[in-house]
């Protein structure tokens, strides 16, 4: 899976938790989940769980903690896919 393909799937994971659909369409590595996409912090665990299901991976504590912006989410997901 290319980074772009992973990004497109990640958009689907994030979509239920943001009303900022315009910004979601144009997200990049620097896009912050809370600050830019206005995702409530209470939904961050939902995103991690949904990402685990979407990519059939397991995200450990330390990796989950890093998933604060789109770039770090993609890095973690790519790393976990490659470890499968």
């Amino acid at each position, binding site marked *: 899976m290319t980074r772009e393909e992973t990004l497109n799937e990640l958009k689907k994971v994030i979509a239920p938790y943001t009303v900022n659909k315009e910004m979601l369409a144009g997200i990049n590595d620097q896009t912050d989940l809370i600050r830019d996409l206005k995702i*409530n912090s*209470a939904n961050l665990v*939902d995103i991690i769980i949904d990402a685990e299901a979407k990519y059939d991976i397991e995200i450990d504590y330390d990796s989950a*903690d890093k998933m*604060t912006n789109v770039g770090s989410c993609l890095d973690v997901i790519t790393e976990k896919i490659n470890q499968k």
Partner: protein
Amino acid sequence: MISTGNDIVALKAINVARTKQQKFYNKIITGSEKALYEGQFSERLPFEYFVWLAWSVKESVFKYLQRLNPELIFSPSKIKISKLEPPSSQRVSHFEGRDFNKKTVYEGIIDYSPHTFYSRTIITDDFIFSVVSHTNNFEKVMWGIKKIGSTDADDQSKAVRTFALAMLNTLFPDSELQIDKNNHSCPVILKNDIEILVPISLAHHDHWVGYSFQV
């Protein structure tokens, strides 16, 4: 430097079934916290309430420390509730004020090496609201909880600022105060565009907003 941290969870907005799934709650609470629940709280508090109580306390600790260390990463599994005392009464009589009525709050002690924090948590049928402090004395902590009409993030942000400023203006009546964010996205109180040394924390979730500040 003294800081403050708070968080609010709207109970109508949580996914109860998902919260009870092990893969979900394992990302929020530790094994020792689950044991704490099973030993002391399983008969008085639904498990999902306990999970979100833990979340709100841990998020509050993170907010407290992030003001002092902007690069800090939120790690719920490393912030551990070591002690939690239940209230003697569940009836909450007021949603704003100074300090807390000990009869109506859960009192916690939290270890986040090398720090120790103390928490106060109010639970109603609608929300879980937590505030943490570096000391077990909350006499200098002002706090407030309010229901608002909108769940839009910008509306929540405006509402919680207006709410907190109303309290601040009663304490500092001759000051023209504003609440803004600093370069690290932490809320700060400004007087004539200069930050004053009153740390403030803001929280919102669904139809509920809350604040805490240290005077």
